């Protein structure tokens, strides 16, 4: 990813969009307060445009803001984020004419946690992290070390099927290609190891994971596919789950959340990153994603004209489990 070029193009396009009145505001990324990180920037001020950045740390799926904001928006998206937008279009949560999509052909987002583990240093002690196609150069105390990029990318990026946005108005760089099968398998490691243990142990695993859940709902709030006006966990008649964070209720909440986002979740991985107690939520969302694909040959956010997965059916849908 030639980030410098893309960043420049983004700034000039974003400025033009605001000046010509084509959008009311721009949703993008700016440098974060912590080293290497980025943070969302939502602005209608032309003077803020030079704060916009594109680098291998633009982790957030900004489409989550679309269904809440009024007016027209120019939005910076990666491949997975663009599919979230397509999914929102399918559900009529966003009107196509109200968004100008600035597509970033993505070559993967760098997981700072993995970088820290790899070089054994805290992020504050690292001088520089530079992505160079399939390599990453990490500099610590003027000591340059090179690694294959896949060692530092987020798990969901390893298995990325669509790095170039599915839907865009302006493409900020050149097309990028999908992950290799080998990398896809690597991204599924956790799920496959879970599948290989007996069901009782699997249940035990999830029981202990959800024991930690504090029900902060960060996973729900960060998710662009979780857009119900009133979430079922807040319903009181009947109370489907109790508000106290007990593992039973936590688990029910998360399973139903996964049901609701089936066919909408694009495996962007935001829920897992948002989780303050590190529950491997992607091992649920990704499995649902693959299940929907395997049983119904449906991938979320690929076709804006198609119906949303659970609002459609085929006469030939699988029914071998029905008596």
């Amino acid at each position, binding site marked *: 990813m030639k980030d410098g070029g893309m960043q420049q193009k983004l700034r000039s396009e974003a400025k033009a969009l605001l000046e010509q009145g084509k959008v009311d505001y721009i949703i993008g990324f700016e440098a974060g307060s912590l080293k290497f990180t980025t943070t969302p920037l939502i602005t209608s001020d032309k003077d803020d445009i030079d704060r916009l950045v594109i680098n291998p740390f633009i982790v957030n799926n900004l489409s989550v803001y679309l269904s809440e904001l009024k007016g027209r928006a120019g939005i910076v998206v990666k491949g997975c984020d663009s599919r979230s937008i397509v999914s929102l279009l399918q559900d009529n949560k966003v009107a196509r004419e109200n968004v100008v999509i600035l597509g970033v052909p993505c070559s993967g987002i760098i997981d700072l946690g993995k970088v820290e583990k790899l070089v054994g240093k805290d992020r504050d002690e690292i001088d520089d992290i530079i992505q160079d196609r399939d390599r990453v150069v990490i500099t610590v105390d003027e000591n340059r070390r090179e690694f294959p990029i896949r060692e530092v990318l987020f798990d969901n990026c390893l298995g990325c099927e669509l790095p170039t946005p599915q839907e865009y108005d302006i493409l900020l760089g050149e097309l990028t290609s999908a992950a290799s099968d080998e990398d896809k398998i690597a991204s599924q490691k956790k799920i496959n190891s879970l599948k290989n243990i007996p069901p009782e142990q699997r249940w035990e695993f999830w029981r202990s994971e959800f024991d930690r859940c504090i029900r902060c709902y960060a996973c729900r709030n960060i998710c662009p596919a979780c857009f119900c006006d009133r979430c079922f966990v807040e319903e009181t008649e009947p109370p489907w789950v109790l508000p106290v964070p007990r593992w039973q209720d936590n688990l029910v909440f998360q*399973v*139903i959340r996964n*049901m609701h986002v089936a066919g909408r979740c694009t495996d962007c991985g935001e829920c897992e990153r948002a989780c303050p107690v590190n529950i491997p939520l992607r091992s649920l969302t990704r499995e649902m994603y693959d299940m929907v694909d395997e049983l119904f040959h449906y991938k979320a956010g690929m076709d804006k004209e198609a119906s949303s997965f659970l609002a459609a059916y085929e006469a030939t849908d699988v029914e071998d489990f029905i008596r």
Partner: protein
Amino acid sequence: MVDYMTQESEWEPKLLGFLCKWCSYAGADLAGTSRKKYPANIRVIRVPCSGRVDPLFILKALRLGFDGVLVSGCHPGDCHYQTGNYYARRRMAITKKFLEYMGIEPQRIQASWVSASEGEKFTEVVTEVTKALKETGPNRLFTDERRRNATKTTE
């Protein structure tokens, strides 16, 4: 609520059935009026359509301690509302598969097509499902560790 302290030998599975009012509920009615016998393990909730059944109902039933859940509706093409059972079919497919991945025994989540004229089939379904649940054993999925251990020692 299920009594977790019940001894294994006396234990009978509790099955919750969501039956569509147009087909399966009428099918169950026919089984009754025809004096067909089926296990009394099923507790029936009548729903307007199998499409009314939210995966949340299924999970809530298991959470409350039911040993299994049966969702039954009209055969494909027979839905009173034309398409409700097709939506239900899709939803049930992912619910069942996903809960299986979580570690819930597949026997606990059951589905069937039973028409209003299939009283015989209804008795067969309930008999088979009850048998499968007996083999699977009591639902202790949502019991707490402490309680689960306590139950173990009394067995």
